[in-house]
């Protein structure tokens, strides 16, 4: 019988939640890396027992962890204790160094500011090689490892896509979304707050902004600027990688041509501000968002936690409330904290800053908390296991 493994990153450690295909009875392990900020964990699609994790700390910086047994044990790739340091390889798995001249980006006050590595927000294992993994970093850059996370090299041409004009938002300036096109592995989409969306068609040699159609009239002096938009999340369905869905700072957007042009599909949402967006595993036109009241009030409108589902690829939305708190709820759902499984009845998952992780085993019709009292949830990923 199939099963699911939910990988949860929180402000104070990582947790792994497992259940069989019914998704009723859950086993919880953790905290793994107790006390550390776990920005993101994600398993390799090629080898599901290989899981990469981004572990960070204001004190000690960035750590990359890897498990090769489904999260039971972990290692810092290449960083194992050395009985004799003489001649042994040095661990470089924590070393994220920008290539070449560091360069500058726009600072909050409009002046230029040097790039400074802070942390890895997102890890995206390759679709076809368990040793390849991409890392989305703050300050915004994409790094690639070809040896299972032992060492990392920046793909520096991303920052040449008008990087001098990128400017951090209040949450920093990070590559938080990395999407590989399953039909064309040379094509990768990434998104940066607050620079926008970008695409490479040549495996990362060159990148171009794909922000035409986005409008940020309250955030940018030029609302139609080529870069500078605060993209919160992008999602695709693997069967239709040219169709992109975006939750922007404000506005839910859609592109039907690989990001060449976007149009708004916010429709009847109670608020078009939010962070995550995801696509049903078997219905490419069914998408999910969690409306948040505003950019200054990061909680659900009216204190009601509602996931909104559109079965028409946007514009027409229905509130999903069965099992979710409908009063006095003031949590947030962060951009990397929603995921879907690929069981026959598609499961939808999301985590909150209040420490709840909810699961809907029926595509959003009904919800139950798997756990209620974790630290603030930063990320949720799910693996569907045979």
């Amino acid at each position: 019988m199939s099963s699911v493994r939910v990988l949860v990153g929180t402000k104070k450690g990582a947790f792994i939640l497992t259940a069989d295909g019914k998704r009723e009875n859950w086993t919880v392990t953790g905290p793994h890396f107790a006390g550390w900020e776990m920005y993101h964990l994600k398993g390799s699609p090629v080898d599901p027992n290989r899981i990469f994790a981004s572990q960070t700390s204001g004190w000690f910086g960035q750590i990359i962890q890897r498990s090769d047994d489904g999260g039971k044990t972990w290692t810092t790739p290449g960083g194992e204790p050395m009985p004799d340091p003489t001649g042994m390889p040095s661990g470089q798995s924590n070393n994220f160094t920008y290539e070449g001249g560091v360069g500058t980006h726009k600072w909050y006050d409009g002046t230029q500011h040097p790039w400074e590595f802070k942390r890895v927000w997102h890890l995206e294992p390759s679709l076809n090689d368990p040793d390849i993994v991409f890392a989305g970093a703050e300050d915004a850059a994409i790094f690639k490892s070809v040896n299972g996370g032992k060492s990392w090299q920046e793909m520096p041409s991303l920052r040449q896509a008008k990087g001098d004009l990128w400017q951090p938002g209040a949450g920093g300036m990070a590559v938080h979304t990395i999407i590989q096109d399953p039909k064309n592995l040379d094509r990768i989409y990434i998104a940066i707050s607050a620079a926008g969306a970008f695409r490479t068609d040549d495996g990362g040699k060159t990148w171009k902004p794909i922000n035409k159609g986005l409008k940020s009239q309250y955030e940018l002096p030029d609302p139609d600027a080529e870069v500078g938009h605060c993209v919160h999340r992008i999602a695709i369905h693997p069967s239709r990688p040219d169709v992109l869905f975006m939750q922007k700072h404000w506005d839910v957007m859609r592109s039907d041509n690989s990001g060449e042009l976007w149009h708004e599909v916010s429709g009847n949402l109670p608020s078009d501000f939010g962070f995550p967006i995801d696509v049903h595993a078997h219905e490419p036109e069914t998408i999910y968002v969690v409306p948040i009241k505003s950019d200054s009030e990061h909680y659900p409108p009216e204190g009601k936690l509602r996931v909104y589902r559109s079965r028409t690829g946007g514009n027409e939305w229905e509130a999903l409330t069965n099992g979710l708190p409908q009063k006095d709820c003031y949590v947030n759902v962060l951009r990397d904290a929603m995921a879907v499984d690929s069981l026959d009845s598609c499961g939808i998952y999301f985590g909150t800053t209040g420490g709840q992780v909810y699961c809907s085993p029926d595509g959003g019709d009904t919800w139950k908390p798997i756990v209620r009292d974790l630290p603030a949830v930063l990320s949720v990923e799910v693996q569907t296991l045979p």
Partner: protein
Amino acid sequence: MIIRVALPFHLRTLARVEGEVSLDVAEPVTVAAVIDALEARYPALQGTIRDHGTLKRRPFIRFFACKEDLSLEPPDTQLPEAILNGTEPFLIVGAMAGG
């Protein structure tokens, strides 16, 4: 020369050690030489105490020896006799969380 080093909790966890660690450090025994030996013995600690590239101490990390704060001293500062003869450990300390 064997030097005792005390690490903060999270770095002990990362290095998978309990209590103090003992390191064989080549003379002259300086702050930098101790960190070099520590990182060589426990590569997972590279980048956690000082920056990979610049080797600058991370802002929330402090170095102490014999109740003296050596954090702002040059990396080639030699450690006192009590550290060299093992009477005292070299302390690597994280800033206190919270307020």
